[in-house]
């Protein structure tokens, strides 16, 4: 959610139960502004909060002019390293809360020595920081969403915030196809010609949520007596997206343990 509208956004996203205490809110407001100045971001989003056993991580993201450019993520206002660690998927369990904590994971590796094949147990140490990085990245790629029309693409290819975005209408707000993944599109080229004919190239340049696998991994609800539409991800429980139809308030926040819900197919 945008740092400028943090208070309102937190209020709107409170339906999921997790929020921020007043002291946290106050400190966040000031620190987000400072971050924006120091790092020269165009927009600063408060991404969310990952609950650890000992302490929590508060994560912010900074966006440059081009909205889909790689974002810089900060936790507790320290810039996180850029490298992606794909090996962190083997680490299960909760976050500790201490970025220097190291997870030990024993892998069985086959080592070829001459003609014999040994199986050795190699202990791989993964720092929690890298795990945090990759989890945030996964969550972003999987479930960060924006409503259709909030961003538009100029003919030069850059993506900007649409200042004339008036919000989705009520009927549109209940459909999954009105929301897009906030990342580079992957499935656009797989669409049929008929579908492409209906798409507006300046607005429909990202994947919509319609074809997410597994089907039904999003829960759309109207709250506050139909005045607020809330999407919650079932794949990464804790991600809440809210939008007030016919206004331009929208945003998402992740408050959770940072673990994927692998049991989703059983639960639907």
């Amino acid at each position, binding site marked *: 959610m945008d740092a400028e509208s943090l208070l309102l956004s937190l209020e709107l996203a409170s339906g999921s139960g997790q929020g921020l205490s*007043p002291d946290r809110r106050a400190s966040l407001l000031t620190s987000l502004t400072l971050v924006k100045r120091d790092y020269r971001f165009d927009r600063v989003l408060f991404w969310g909060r990952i609950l650890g*056993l000992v302490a929590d991580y508060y994560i912010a993201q900074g966006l440059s002019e081009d909205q889909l450019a790689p974002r810089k993520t900060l936790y507790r206002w320290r810039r996180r390293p850029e490298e992606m660690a794909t090996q962190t998927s083997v680490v299960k369990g909760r976050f500790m809360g201490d970025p220097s904590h190291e997870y030990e994971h024993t892998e069985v590796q086959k080592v070829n020595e001459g003609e014999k094949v040994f199986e050795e147990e190699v202990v791989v140490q993964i720092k929690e920081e890298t795990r945090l990085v990759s989890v945030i990245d996964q969550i972003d790629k999987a479930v960060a969403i924006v409503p259709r029309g909030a961003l538009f693409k100029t003919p030069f290819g850059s993506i900007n915030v649409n200042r004339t975005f008036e919000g989705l209408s*009520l009927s549109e707000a209940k459909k999954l196809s009105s929301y897009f993944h906030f990342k580079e599109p992957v499935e656009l080229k797989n669409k049929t010609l008929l579908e492409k004919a209906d798409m507006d190239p300046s607005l429909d340049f990202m994947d919509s949520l319609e074809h997410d696998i597994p089907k039904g991994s999003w*829960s759309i*609800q109207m709250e506050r007596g139909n005045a607020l539409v809330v999407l919650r991800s079932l794949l990464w429980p804790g991600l809440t997206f809210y939008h007030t139809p016919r206004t331009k308030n929208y945003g998402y926040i992740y408050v959770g343990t940072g673990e994927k819900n*692998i*049991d989703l197919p059983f*639960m*639907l």
Partner: protein
Amino acid sequence: MGDPPPNPDSPSQPTSSRRNSQLSERWRSQEQPRPQPTVPYEVQQTPPDAQIPRSSQEVVSSQTNLRGWSQRASLTQNENLMFQAEEAQLGGIEYSSLNTGFPSEIQPQPYLSEGRFQVTRDASLMLQQLQQGEGNLFQQLEAAYQEPGANLLGQFTMYQRDLQFGQSAEHGPYLRDDPALQFSPSELGFMPFSMEMPEPEPRELAVQNAKAYLLQTSVNCDLSLYEHLVNLLTKILNQRPENPLFLLESLNRTTQWEWFHPKLDTLRDDPEMQPIYEMAERQKALFGGSGGGEGEQEMEEEVAETAVPNIMEKAFYFEQAGVGLGSDESFRIFMALKQLVEQQPILTCRFWGKILGLSRSYLVAEVEFREGEEEGEEEEMEEMMEGGDVMETHGEEEGEEEEKIPDVIPKPTWKPPPAIPKEESRSGANKYLYFVCNEPGQPWARLPHVTPIQIVQARKIKKFFTGYLDAPVISYPPFPGNEANYLRAQIARISAATQISPLGFYQFGEEEGDEEEEGGAGRDSYEENPDFDGIPVLELVDSMANWVHHTQHILPQGRCTWVNPLQKTEEEEELGEEEEKADEGMEEVEQEVGPPLLTPLSEDAEIMHMSPWTARLSCSLSPQYSVAVVRSNLWPGACAYASGKKFENIYIGWGHKYSPENFNPPLPAPIQQEYPSGPEIMEMSDPTVEEEQALKAAQEQVLAASEEEEEDEDEDEDEDQDD
């Protein structure tokens, strides 16, 4: 856009002055505002007075004028008769030459109010003028809307080429049979000048084509470009904004929007907003009800304690902890609970929490009825269930009796495990009654009591709640009940695991019996400790031993108090003797024991080397005023706070337990044994035809042999008698 060669200034200036005068005249002559599409060479008609001086300045050089035209063309976004010609073809304008014929001809034209005809008429006029001028060079104007009207453009290009070379080719594809485009020449107005009109048809056709193209409705809607431009220009001319150039974008957008979103009737409601208004009405009733009854009950309420807890205070503390639903939502919940208390005979009431669902969420209230207010509904339901069971058993017995006569069907040796009786109301897992609703303002629905089998099955499955109480729960192993039962079972599990209080808040009553009572595993009731002083917040956070569970643990059996399923009840003794023997063959079941009530949290089992609880101070910056917050790691979403003498629990989440391992659905049960085969049920193969015939032949032989013997014997007897 190609740059036209600059025309000599001198001829243009007098023409410009003439044009200016022309303009003002024409401007005055305009009586009614009307949409006027920009036509090349007639651009000056449309813009308001403010633009006239500007245009005159731009006339200085045709180049700038061209720019001005193009600007205006793009600004007013009018479709004119745009001749989009390829750059290679066209040179610049010969503005001066064209202009000569311009003013005199235009003047006498009466302007009709209809823009449509105007376009075509002007266009045809212009075309005629163009025809006049030798060496027609059409200016290049960029169309405001770059419509991919390739065909038409191609045709125009062809047309221009033709004109340029003075050829008159037949244009077959222009022919359109659209009566709407026909206009009678009489409406055209008079052309006092006698112009040669060589081959008007192709030109008219081109014009008609252009207009037809403009009138083409877009695929997505019923609006055509033409109509939109008409609307836009009408609007501009009606409202006469100060700086229409800058406002053009927004004007365009609002015009489009208004077309599709007609203003609301005062009589009809907007259909889209209907559900919102309904919900608001219902929620207004929440506030209205309390307001209306306030005057009467004011005195009473001050004196009597209400069953409704102070939700706002608890919401405040939870907010400090970072958990909660938002303050206005909490207030609405408070009002809804108040409504519940008024409707039902409730002794104590508590907001238990919120369970999120797929389409809707549940707000759960935990209540305790007043003494003696037994739930009549429950009893009725139970009777119906028992009646059904009795009927079934009767049916089975009758069936068996009938079948005993002709043939004996082997009875299966499998018997379902004895059903564990559910706990009584107000005890164990059914200590409290739960009401749910989807949103504050909606009526509260009561959840049925939970049975042990439901809890046992609920432990084995993991399903999301949909939000509808009567939705079936499709799972393996099959859950005995619908979503209401599943919800109740999860609520029972969560309550048993996560309802905690500071040590010492509750204490055991003094009138408890021995701990070693049969079927009892400790005391199952507690009461508030009046001497509780409160534990300092820092201590609460440091050690888990300062918190205790104040709900009973649910045994693996599904109950809080142990019941031996093998105890014979009266019903079981009615069965035959054989089955009693089978019972005795079953193994003895061990008594299940769980941790007693008021066990401190430090005794809780760990999850994968992880403590099941996380305790924090709500605000590390001001520890003297902060609140101790404890979060459960086993049931993510369960949270408790304590501060001084106050504490509270809440659950907001999806309603599932946390497990670091993946969920593994149980395998299907092993295949049951078939009935042991014996001679009665052994299948034998039918004899084949040959065998039957052989048998028959053998029998006949035997018969024949015996008959012969008889005959022999008869003969012998006869012979004997003869002698």
